[in-house]
Structures are given as C-alpha cells and as structure tokens.
C-alpha cells in the first residue's frame, strides 16, 4: 500500500468496482479498500468462490457478478481486501485497519461506495437469539452454504425478502411461513408510479416471477401482518402476529426479518459530507450533485450508500463517479467526460425508473418505524421505545441528547441499529419532522478499533 494515491475508492461492491475500473482504464493511479476478503459487495458476495455446488440457485442477477468481478481483478487497480476504513476526514486522509494494525493513506480524490445496511426492524423480542435479518440468512447461504432449520419463518416486506425466499426454496430450505407486512394502504400510491415503472419492465417481470415461485411452493403466506412479535425465554420459541384481523402463533426457533435497506452514511458523515432526510425512502442520504460529488470537495459517493438504487444502477453510478474523478484529475476534458456520460445516464435512468414504485409499494409500516413501548430500540444498551418516548416528553431534543438521557446509541454499533428509530420516536411524541430532529453526530472511529491498534500506526 502506498502512502498516497490519486484516487482511493472505499467498497468493492458494484459501485466501487466500477468507479475503480473506470479510473484505472484512464490511467489513474487507484486503490480500492474493502473490509471483506473478496470483492463483490453485498449482492455478489463470494461470487468467484461460491461454496455452493450450484450457485445458479441464487439467480441470474447474482451470476452476472462473476464477469464484473473477473474484469475488476484483471484491471490495473491496487486492491486491498481485509482492509477496514475506520476514518476519513474532509482533507481526504484515510485511516485503515489491516491485520490488526492501523495505518493512514492520502488521496487526491475519494469515492465512497460503502453500500447499504438492512433497515432496522424493531419488534418486541427482536433481540432474542434465533431472530436475525433476512440479509444475514442470505449471507450465510451465499458465503457459507449454511441454512436455517426447516421451521424458519420469514417476515417483512420488499423485493429482497421475496428474492431470499425463492433462493431458500431452491436450496431446499423448508420455510414454515412468510409473514408479509406490506400495508395494503401502500397500493394506491404505488399504482400511481406503475406507468413510470414500465421503463424498467424487466424488474417488474422478475418480481412477478419471484411471487409466482413462492405461490407454487405452497409455503403459507400471511398477508397484511401487524402486531408482529418474537417470544421466548432464553432463545426464540414462537412468533405471534395478526393477519387480516386474526391472531396467530407459530412455534419456531428461527425468525428472519427484513423491511428494505438504507444507505450506510457513517463514513460520509465522519468526513463532514452533508446528509439530508429523504422522505420517499425514509432514510438519511448524502447531498450530491449530478456527478455524485458530495458537499466536501474531492469526495464523491456512489451506489446504495448514496441512496437506494439497486445493484445495476450502483454500477452505473460508480462509472459516473469514476469519470468525474478522471476529469478532475485532468485525464479527460469536460467535453470528453460529458460525451462518455451520455450513454451511462440513459441506461441509469432506465434502472432508476422502478424506484418510485418500489419505494411506495414497500414503504415500511409505521409499526416498525415507531414501535410499541416494550420494543428494545437500542439493542446495545437495551433502551426501550417507551423510555425514548418518555425522554421525548421530558423535552429531549434529538438523538444526541437522547444519549445523555438514556445511554441510547452509546454502544458498539454506534447507533446503526437505533438511530433512525430514536429520531422517529422523538418526532412522533413532539409532533416534529424527522429532518428537524436529526441523526447522531458521527465521530471516528466509524468501525471498532482498540487503543492498542491505534497505537500501532
């Protein structure tokens, strides 16, 4: 690893790989850092080293990643796997942790491509062992060929939940039931975006295919699920819920939750990039111009970390961000950049056309945004929704103050699992907007590092 590069890209998912390849193809000296041991990001996890004897059960979108990863590996890029970026500042100084040792490197340009995390889905009992995210289940399947016992229950909403259910069925996992929490009231709003979504007809066709494959499997699907909660003494024993007015209880040791994904903005926030509340996607996302430049000079942000767009659009955004760096570094003229971007933007628009439909169709139910009082909101410090409501009534102004009132958000996850819920609860009690209540202030390190490791640098 050199002490300085013209471009440092963080994240080897579709966005980061594309940004790095684009820059390398124009002769830019580029490093790509990723904490995972293999390239591919979330969607293409383990794609060039699958433990599955038949990776095609994961679907054609997954297999598409093979070529992308192979081309990335052949490009002239200094790729550093197993390298966690624990800080980035506004002067583009990068701090990384490799093999338990911290070190720093500088860059003329940065592209942050750290992707998304699953949206927290707080329900009573979600902290019990045996409850995990659907994404976690998918990671186990993709990277370890490990699957849950045959009584697994999937609950939530959104395209990734459907995809994951169909992957499990193809892998021979016996799903006990799927609990669909998509509110019926989302439909009229979504239908309004259906015409626009026809621009990305292939997504609609894929979605219908997934729904059809689940229907064919005869796995029971409970619709319009509300009042979801997990029960158990030491570990999960049962899931209780209401579906279309009737109460149900399913005994199970494994519950997998999912209500969509949200951008991971911690690194961008550490670097002082401005983030804004997005009411359509119900998440914080960085403010960017049309070249994906953040509000901090020299730092671009691409892919799902910039707002949820999906894997193919993330790849295209990565190319745009790459082109912009090449232009700023002087290896392309403005006209050359603009010309190269025309075709990319045209394809990107096609992939983005489905988003307003998906965002409104799978908008999470308020039940999971402002959960009932006995839900543990902060898993690390074990602070309940009731306690947050109480401190909001006492006048707590926002998430940062909530830390002082309750220790909420002070645990090792640094608010990744509670930040959005705390803000939504305070907004609810005080009748304010989430954009006004705000988010936790993010301070380095954005990834855990011990004092000893820091001292190694």
């Amino acid at each position, binding site marked *: 690893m050199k002490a300085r590069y013209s471009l440092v890209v963080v994240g080897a998912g579709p966005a980061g790989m594309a940004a790095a390849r684009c820059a390398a193809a124009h002769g830019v000296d580029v490093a790509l850092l990723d*904490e995972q*041991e293999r390239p591919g990001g*979330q969607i293409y996890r383990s794609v060039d*080293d*699958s*433990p*599955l*004897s*038949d990776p095609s059960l994961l679907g054609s979108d997954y297999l598409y990643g093979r070529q992308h990863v192979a081309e990335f590996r052949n490009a002239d890029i200094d790729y550093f796997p197993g390298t966690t970026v624990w800080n980035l500042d506004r002067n583009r100084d990068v701090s990384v942790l490799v093999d338990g040792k911290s070190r720093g490197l500088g860059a003329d340009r940065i592209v942050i491509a750290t992707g998304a*995390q*699953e949206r927290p889905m707080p329900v009573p009992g979600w*902290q*019990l*062992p*045996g*409850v*995990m*995210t659907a*994404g*976690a289940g998918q*990671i*186990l399947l993709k*990277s*370890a*060929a*490990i*699957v*849950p*016992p045959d009584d697994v229950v999937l609950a939530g909403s959104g395209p990734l939940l459907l995809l994951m259910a169909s992957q499990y069925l193809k*892998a*021979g996992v016996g799903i006990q039931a799927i609990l669909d929490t998509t509110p019926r009231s989302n439909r009229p709003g979504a239908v309004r975006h259906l015409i626009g979504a026809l621009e990305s007809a292939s997504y609609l066709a894929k979605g219908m295919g997934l729904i059809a494959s689940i229907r064919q499997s005869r796995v029971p699907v409970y619709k319009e699920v509300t009042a979801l909660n997990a029960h158990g003494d*030491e*570990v999960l024993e049962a899931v209780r819920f209401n579906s279309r007015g009737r109460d149900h209880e399913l005994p199970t*040791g494994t519950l997998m939750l999912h209500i969509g994904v949200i951008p*991971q903005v911690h690194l961008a926030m550490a670097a002082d990039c401005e983030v804004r509340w997005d009411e359509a996607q119900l998440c914080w996302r960085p403010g960017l111009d049309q070249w994906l430049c953040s509000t901090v000079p020299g730092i671009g942000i691409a892919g799902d970390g910039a707002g949820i767009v999906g894997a193919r659009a993330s790849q295209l955004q990565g190319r745009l961000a790459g082109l912009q760096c090449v232009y700023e570094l002087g290896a392309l003229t403005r006209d050359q950049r603009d010309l190269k971007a025309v075709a990319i933007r045209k394809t990107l628009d096609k992939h983005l056309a489905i988003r307003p439909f998906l965002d409104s169709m799978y908008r999470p139910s308020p039940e999971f945004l402002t959960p009932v009082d006995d839900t543990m909101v902060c*898993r*690390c*410090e*074990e602070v309940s929704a009731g306690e947050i409501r109480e401190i909001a009534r006492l006048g707590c102004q926002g998430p940062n103050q909530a830390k002082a009132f309750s220790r909420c958000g002070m*645990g*090792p*996850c640094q608010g*990744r*699992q509670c930040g959005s819920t705390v803000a939504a609860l305070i907004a609810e009690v005080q009748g304010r907007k989430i954009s006004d209540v705000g988010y936790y202030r993010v301070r380095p390190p954005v*990834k*855990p590092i*011990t004092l000893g490791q820091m001292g190694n640098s």
Partner: protein
Amino acid sequence: MFRTLTTVRRNLIRFTLDGQFHQAPAGISVAAALLTAVRFSRRSVVSGRGRGPYCMMGTCFDCLVCIDGEPNQQACMVTLREGMNIETQTGIRDLDTGTTADMD
C-alpha cells in the same frame, strides 16, 4: 441449529469452541460456524440475556466473541481458521476495562 448444505464444496477445518472440538467448512466466518454449534454466543453486557449473530455484516455487534484470547471480536467479520480457539462471551463485560468476568 443451522446446517451446512450437504453439497458444500469446501474442505472441513477444525476449531475449538469453549474448549470443545468442532468442524466447519473452510472459508466461512466465525459467526457462521457458531450458528451451526450453539444457540447463543454471548450475553448482553447490560441484562445478561443471551444474544447471537443478527446482521452478519458488521452493523449490530451482537456476534462479539473472544478469538485466540482477544475479546470483543466481531465473529461475522472474521474468517474461521484451522485451530482457532473461540470462546463465547457469556460473562458480563466490565465496561471500563473490556475484560470479562464470569457470570456463574
């Protein structure tokens, strides 16, 4: 308990979990291996209740274990290696020192 698909294309490697020998396919994460062996892998430092891996991608910290003597490692972000000694953190962590005191 989670299971490995019978068709898995990996060699098996050996590791210890709380002193007991176990086997798992090479290349998987420590958290994946834990899920095939135990129902929970740590206790909350606040209430002492059981917890296990939740997100598998480094965002929740519910997978913390002690690996080869080093406590508070994110099991989902560490690849399992031959001969690793893994200990579940079922004691209550002393918040000031990060060390673990036994519960029972």
